[in-house]
């Protein structure tokens, strides 16, 4: 990256770690995460806000990091797909469910789905099938035909209910 006089400094909590950076005003959050933080799990499938591959949590809300400038995340907390599990050798309940239900083939869309679903289930722990389909409609997958993904959301909700001690 070229240093320009117009650079801004930002401080963002990324996956629980405070990161300071100097960025061009036009740098997107997605590019900053991928290129400066080396968190390449956040993918770019369209860069115009439709496919959802770039979804991250910004202060716990699912957002499209291709449509945000890095500077807009200043003093916010960002969680990427790499930051969802409780430990380096763990998978989060949603990640585990995607694996169990064949919710992915090429895996390119998967980080976006996993992050979106994580936010969705936090807000709606026991969704109906229609709510699931609706919640996923902002993420595109070209491989799976969504069958495994929809099953994975149901399974993740079960995992999470079990973890809360509810009988599923």
């Amino acid at each position: 990256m070229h240093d320009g006089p117009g650079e801004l400094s930002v401080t963002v909590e990324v996956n629980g770690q405070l990161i300071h950076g100097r960025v061009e005003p036009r740098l997107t959050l997605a590019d900053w995460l991928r290129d400066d933080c080396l968190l390449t799990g956040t993918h770019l499938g369209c860069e115009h806000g439709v496919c959802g591959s770039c979804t991250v949590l910004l202060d716990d809300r699912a957002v499209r990091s291709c449509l945000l400038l890095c500077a807009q995340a200043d003093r916010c907390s960002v969680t990427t797909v790499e930051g969802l599990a409780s430990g380096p050798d763990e998978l989060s309940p949603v990640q585990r469910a995607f694996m169990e239900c064949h919710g992915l083939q090429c895996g390119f869309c998967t980080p976006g789905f996993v992050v979106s679903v994580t936010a969705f289930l936090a807000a709606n722990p026991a969704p109906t099938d229609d709510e699931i389909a609706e919640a996923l409609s902002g993420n595109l997958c070209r491989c799976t035909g969504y069958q495994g993904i929809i099953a994975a959301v149901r399974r993740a909700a079960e995992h999470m209910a079990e973890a809360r001690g509810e009988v599923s």
Partner: protein
Amino acid sequence: MVAGRFVGQSVLRREDPRLVSGHGRYVDDVRVPGMVHAAFVRSHVARARIAALDVAAAERLPGVRAVYTARDLEPLIVGPLGATMYLSAPIPSPVALASGDVRYPGQPVALVLADSRYLAEDACELVRLDYDVATPVMDMETAAESEILVHPERGSNVVSQSRRWDDDLELAIRGAPYVVTRTFRQPRQSHTPMEPHGVVASWDRFDGELRIWCTSQRVHEVRATMGRVTGIPEQRIHVVQRDVGGAFGQKGAMRPEEIAVVLAACKAGVAVKWVEDRHENLVAGGHARSDRIAVTMGLDHEGGIIGAELDHLEDAGAYPSLGSVGGLVAMMFPGAYRMGGVNWSTRAVFTNSCGRAPYRGPWNIESLAREQIMDAAAREMGLDPVELRRRNVIARTDMPFTNASGMTYADIDPAAVLAETLRRFDYPEFLEEQSEQRGGGRRIGVGVSLFVEPTALGTGTMLGTEAAHVKVSLAGKVTVALGTSSHGQSIATTMAQIAADELGVDIEDVSVVDGETDITPIGGGTGGSRSGVIGGGATHRAAGHVRDKVLRVAAELMEAAPEDLETDRGRIQVRGTPTRSVSLAQVAHAAYVDTKLLPAGVEPGLEALVRYSTPAITFANACHICVVEILPSGQVEILRYVVVEDCGAMINPMVVHGQISGGVVQGIGGALYERFCYDEDGNPLTTTFMDYLIPTSTEVPFIEISHLNSPARGPGGYKGVGEGGAIGAVPAVRNAISDALGADVTDGVRPCDLFESTPLAGGSSR
């Protein structure tokens, strides 16, 4: 075959932990020291002479390393850029950067190298490109007669054509009791893998080594292409790919952009990365479908098919990456039915549009046309469409069966597949319900599609064989190196299942290596529904060779006969006496170290590289039934979707289901949503995901999938399954809409078509 501990099971994928946690490695994740970034200046018009191309201002921008035009890269090119497989096809070699004129919108004209992608794109804006714009050829129907030539040096806009015509058959068809004629079209589509194209290349001028990281269906093809284009000896070209974010045919051949980037890396002597953005992918990444077929079918009083005539026309675009599919369309048209004969003429033409690239069942219009005209014929005869199919369908007892175009099928049972689909669906009950609901004013329709799928095509091309290199380590662990690779097909998992069963080891003890030219056998990659059949066959055979040797050595070590031994979980034991056993590690020790223990005539080492070649085509077969409702808003809602697939033995049913589901939804997209459009002047109109619609979770039904198993003859009995979903879904959906409306749907319909006009913008062809 031994009943498998792993083969036939829905083993969870070993690819998944890294992919679900964000640790996959796609081409855009590759970083090489000193790497710079590329962006392209592209033509905004379909056809023009380049009047001026001035890169000086772009070169002066700080952070820009170089700006290259055709003049800079052409001296590096010593061979044709097209895919190896199609070098002898009547198609022009793609050009890396346009020189003199441009022939399709989005054609790359110049390439900028800069310290960041942002700067590279800034610099592209500073390149001055002036054209003398000319009228393009955009209409495939008139292209052959047009005075305007897409490639003037070829003297014609016809790519290729074929014809087989029997006048007596024509008379018989035309004089038949029922003669049905329709013209069917399918829209131009984009494959839209979620990961677009991209490449990273680095040229080490001192060692003379070219390193390429790519996203491709076939790494060995990338090496072959770049060796041919640059003249760099192939053994000095090292191609690597890890995860690939989908392809569906679009990544089978290198794009001109990717080749230009590799050439730029060679010229600049630095590592270069380029990743296509979505706009570039939609406009210039390779297109598909965009063909039409006129069909006339003659039937006798009982509904027997006397014969059919086909006239197929295919829009190849300016630089197609494959030859015409017309031949295969004609050969597969009879599908699962007996017919008296088929007359055909096919033609592919150039237009000033993005070139055609193979897409999941590139010949699919044969199934669309056949299954739709069967329904149209049934309606004209007052017969149930299912009954018409029953009267003509072939069965297992007909095998081997040569269809009316001359293609010989084996090992399929379409009659059983049709019957099983109808049973699962409960067709009679549906018909009752439908008539009730129609009485209540609802527009509900059902569509059936039955088809035969040619899988693992390719004897006589680079796709005819595949090899596996199976090695047992000193510790008794297994590595399988494959020439094919995955772009979502779960090859690392499925091939480990096969090798583990053949060798009698735990699946955790098998690793699969692919996607790297230096350490894998030459292979054709994944495409054409071939990796399960040919890669699976190779893995079987190679692991089988190693197993035979393991048994011979173990027999010697235990003073037993090889026939009396069995393998289980990494141990080789005397059948019925598990206490008499040796471990695979002990056998490996004898094979590599204590070689005096080997039986006479047995070579040291415990590995095998076996190349497997399939029969010409392995046939699979499936039937889809779809129920739709046309809502008052014009929206098409899919109420039910049933698939019965006969893809032979399944290595991993979960993976097979995934392939079918993904294909069906792509087919639904083709029937209902996807249409890449140009205006008359050749300006692309659908250049974002806001305009080019692919299905989302709210448009897809629950897909009910079940299986029959007519095994193929190759090892394991596997058949291909990658393409069928996409082939079968288009006619199933279109037939259902036609049934609901009582009018033929002869083109793709988008929500706006049914919304804006009544009953159909696609219209009836009559």
